[in-house]
């Protein structure tokens, strides 16, 4: 566990000092809400539309961040150092995934209130407890696949293109489940019950893709 926590500290400190990915992701989400306002020509959204706007925005912001996950490691040579160190390579994956979850959580601290103010309206406040549960499970899902996809795309010539191209279809089950789970929460007449079925799908996705990613990630680093 110690290498993982050391690498995790390194990720968080690096982001704290450079402030490269998280502010960009947060700004991107807020701008996307504005784009949605003009794109769908609505002042307020509810139900399935609200759920869709929120998840599409968060997914695209996450893709933006996933692309940056390994870039500094590759460009500044940290990856070589990590590979030379006598540690299990899985700890690199775990540190990246956990730091990505943390980045997503910080982005959502900005994006979700902005979503409430700009598009949702105050009557949906009772949706927050359910929304937090969905956000947590979906963030884990986005992080486990996003980190793997970022690892795949980083060493290619066209990594900026390939990351989202691979990530979007791979994350579609997360979008299906998360959008369905939050739809009743944003219902016009106040929050409905949280559909536990979709939370179970999210949890299953997190576990299956997480285990596979841990199993295959070593092969991306065999140099």
């Amino acid at each position: 566990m110690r290498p993982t926590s050391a690498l995790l500290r390194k990720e968080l400190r690096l982001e704290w000092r450079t402030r490269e990915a998280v502010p960009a992701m947060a700004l991107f989400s807020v701008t996307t809400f504005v784009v949605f306002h003009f794109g769908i020509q609505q002042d307020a959204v509810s139900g399935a539309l609200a759920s869709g706007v929120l998840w599409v925005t968060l997914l695209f912001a996450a893709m933006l961040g996933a692309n940056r996950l390994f870039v500094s490691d590759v460009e500044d040579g940290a990856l070589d150092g990590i590979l030379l160190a006598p540690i299990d390579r899985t700890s690199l994956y775990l540190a990246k995934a956990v730091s990505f979850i943390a980045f997503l959580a910080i982005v959502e601290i900005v994006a979700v209130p902005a979503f409430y103010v700009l598009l949702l309206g105050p009557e949906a406040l009772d949706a927050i407890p359910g929304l937090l549960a969905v956000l947590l499970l979906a963030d884990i899902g986005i992080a486990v696949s996003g980190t793997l996809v970022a690892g795949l795309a980083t060493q290619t010539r066209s990594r900026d293109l390939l990351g989202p191209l691979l990530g979007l279809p791979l994350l579609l089950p997360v979008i299906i489940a998360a959008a369905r789970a939050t739809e009743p929460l944003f219902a016009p007449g106040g929050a409905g019950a949280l559909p536990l079925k979709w939370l179970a799908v999210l949890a299953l996705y997190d576990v299956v893709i997480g285990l596979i990613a841990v199993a295959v990630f070593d092969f991306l680093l065999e140099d």
Partner: protein
Amino acid sequence: MYGKGLRTLSIATAVTLTAAFALGFFYAPMDADQGVMQKIFYVHVPMAIVALLGFVAGGIFAIQHLRSGDRRHDMRSYVAIHMSLILGVGVLVTGSIWAKAAWGHWWLWDEPALVSFLIVFLLYACYQPLRFAIEDPERQARYASVFAVVAGAFVPLNFMAVRMAEEKTHPRVLQDSSNLPGSVWLVFFVALLGMGLLYMTLWRFEMAAKNTRGQIRKLRRRLGADVVATRSAAPR
């Protein structure tokens, strides 16, 4: 090595597929609602099943490649996914034609099999862009295999999520199987066998072609000629 018995296999494929289509048109009963359009069932469904199995086979070859480091498994995985992608285009086109004929729309979002096939197809469509964006042949093979394993595991997960999302009930031919006459099943299995043979034949042909190209490259190199690396999964 891959060319051996290819002629027999090709003839068997041609005979089985012809028999399947002949049976489909002249022996299988006419569908009461959809009429002759329902015959596309004998092309579309076997093709979809074979394409999905091909993706799974690509994943299994990829696991073997990652375990053994033997590049031949990677080539098998590449060719399996390539063939499945080609069949996949056929599945989407025939599915769309069938949807138009049966329900009046070119695309139906509440048909889970079709929707999840589209998602799987979109994911696998990234296989070649990913592969050929990597220069180093060894890393190319390794990364492609990692992708094939992850995508192979994604297929059932995605199917489940889409099926749960679209729990409306369209009359699905295979689901209410109790009231299907035995002749439909017979023709369906002959068509499935034919499509499976077609896949095997095409797979063997491409493997033979890749092997030959690799051998020619090796011979050219021995003659001292400059061999230009191309975008290809064939051995260098």
